[in-house]
């Protein structure tokens, strides 16, 4: 059994409790750096997509995992970010980096507005409100043809920073990875700071939070704004990668996929967002491989992959609600305590009725 002894207050605030974990991080970064050299273009594109999904995952981890606010409409912020970035670069001629930050800002503004209902509404009603807002935003994007090209979509120029154009896969991959690492660090800092603690308090009990002087309004609205900001940045990156965006890319189903992403990845942690992002990007490949193995008549059926996603989601919700990250922690726990591990440690308590609403 491994025991980590904490001797100073700093030990509680540090990012990793053991220095060796930093070595793993370094190793991972080196691995990521070399992927373009031996990965192949297709794999590279998957990893780039995983990057976008990781940033979305982070935005939802902060909003839902940490602050406990449910959003069923995150694709709307993604869309706003994508469209804004495209419009800033192609119609206003702004440099890419500035456009990306600004479109994050636009998404943030929208997020602040969407956050307002959260002040009075509890989980279920908030979820429905966010869903409704997402539909309205989607409708606005579709109908505002002069700005967004409506259902015909917009074509997006490639990203460039100071003359250096990101038009090939490896270049974009590095750009995305840098941004992902930065956003991950920022998210982790939020988690271990007082701001993150206040968000967690909000999730657990609003009444107690107010009794302790936490301004619930400020935290709820600001976290919606921040979460939307992240999603907007991811949207901007996606737009300049895909080259062409239409409202069809940003449906309700995409919002659901985002939620699936964090549930499967692991709701409470930054690592969960990464795992979820990888899952979301790699799973279509996995499904393709499986369908190829199936008997011939099942091939070529549209919608089969969606069924797989849904089934996997159900499996995770029923048996492993903490996602892959939770699974990983359980395995670590097992090895840490070997051979003293008890089988019943993680068994779910069987409930016969729903608890009273909070």
């Amino acid at each position, binding site marked *: 059994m491994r025991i980590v002894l904490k001797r100073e207050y700093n030990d509680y605030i540090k990012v990793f409790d053991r220095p060796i974990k930093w070595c793993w991080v370094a190793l991972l970064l080196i691995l990521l750096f070399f992927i373009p050299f031996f990965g192949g273009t297709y794999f590279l594109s998957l990893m780039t997509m995983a990057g976008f999904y990781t940033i979305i995952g982070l935005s939802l981890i902060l909003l839902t995992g940490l602050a406990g606010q449910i959003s069923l409409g995150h694709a709307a912020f993604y869309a706003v970010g994508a469209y804004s970035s495209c419009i800033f670069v192609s119609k206003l001629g702004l440099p890419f980096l500035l456009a990306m930050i600004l479109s994050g800002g636009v998404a943030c503004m929208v997020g602040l507005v969407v956050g307002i209902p959260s002040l009075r509404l509890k989980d279920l009603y908030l979820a429905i409100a966010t869903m409704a807002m997402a539909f309205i935003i989607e409708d606005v994007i579709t109908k505002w043809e002069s700005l967004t090209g409506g259902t015909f979509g917009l074509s997006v120029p490639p990203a460039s920073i100071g003359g250096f154009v990101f038009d090939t896969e490896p270049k974009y991959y590095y750009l995305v990875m840098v941004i992902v690492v930065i956003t991950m660090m920022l998210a982790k800092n939020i988690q271990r700071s007082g701001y993150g603690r206040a968000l967690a308090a909000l999730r657990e009990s609003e009444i107690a939070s107010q009794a302790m002087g936490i301004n619930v309004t400020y935290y709820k609205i600001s976290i919606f704004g921040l979460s939307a900001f992240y999603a907007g940045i991811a949207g901007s990156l996606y737009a300049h990668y895909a080259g062409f965006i239409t409202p069809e890319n940003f449906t309700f189903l995409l919002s659901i996929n985002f939620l699936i992403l964090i549930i499967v990845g692991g709701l409470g942690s930054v690592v969960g967002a990464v795992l979820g992002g990888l899952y979301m990007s790699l799973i279509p490949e996995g499904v393709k491989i499986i369908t190829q193995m199936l008997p011939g008549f099942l091939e070529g059926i549209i919608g089969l992959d969606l069924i797989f996603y849904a089934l996997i989601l159900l499996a995770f919700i029923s048996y492993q609600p903490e996602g892959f990250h939770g699974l990983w922690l359980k395995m670590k726990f097992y090895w840490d305590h070997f051979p003293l591990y008890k089988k019943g440690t993680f068994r779910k308590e069987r409930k016969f*009725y729903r608890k009273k609403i909070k």
Partner: protein
Amino acid sequence: MVVQLLEQIGAGIGLGSVYALVALGFVLIYKATEVVNFATGALMMLGPFLFYSLVVFFHFPIWLGIAVSIVCMAMLGAGIDRFILRGLLGEPMLSIVLATLAVGIIIDCVAGIIWGFEPVAAPELIPNQAVRLVGITLSSAHTLTIVVLTLLIIMLFIFFRHTKIGIAMQATAQNQFSAYMMGINVGGVFSLSWAISAVICCIAGIVLIPISSLHVHMTHIGLMAFPAAILGGLSSIPGAVVGGLIIGLTENLASYYFPLIKDSLPFIVLILVLMIKPEGIFGIHERKKV
């Protein structure tokens, strides 16, 4: 002008009756089990397709097709509750929402695989005649929905007030724990609510066939259950009906007079309701006691 307005109102009420039915199915499950059923639309879509297959491919007479698809949907509904949601009983709301969403997605995809994604020529339920009522003309389709809604409301009313099972369901809805203590089979009640809700959705889908053609994207109409149920009050059955009618009405009037916001209007209404009076028209304000 006035006649036109009245006719639009009539059509709106006709459409609203379908929304009312869907909202009924939704609210029934929420009231009994506190589960938000995002698969309502999918159930609403599956029923009519079953009916269609039975009538067109197996040559069932229409009444038998309706009866069998109702029974099948009831079993499906009960099955979803018993096998998927039973295990998720104490879980946080997010898990349950995603679970019903997943079920909805699976049903949608399976339906798409079996019947394709194009609209399908459906058997005629009733001859397509105009009905003249109080000086305004309604299509027979809309009249059918209004009649069916009224009949269902009466049946449900009798069921809940005057049968033992209905009363047991009300008891479970109000306090699950006490219901257990009184010997009510709470699990059975849950499955029954799901079964009844599935049946209502199936009927809603079937009467929808003459209005909107039969195709897999009917699921989208299921989303209208949300504005309707919220407007009326999530735990209120009369609320679902009233909410559905109002939403149908406003949507119809909007599509005629303000076509631009037609698609967003139900959701704008929903948000307005949530901001002003989240409990809806008939709902009760729940406040946590400290």
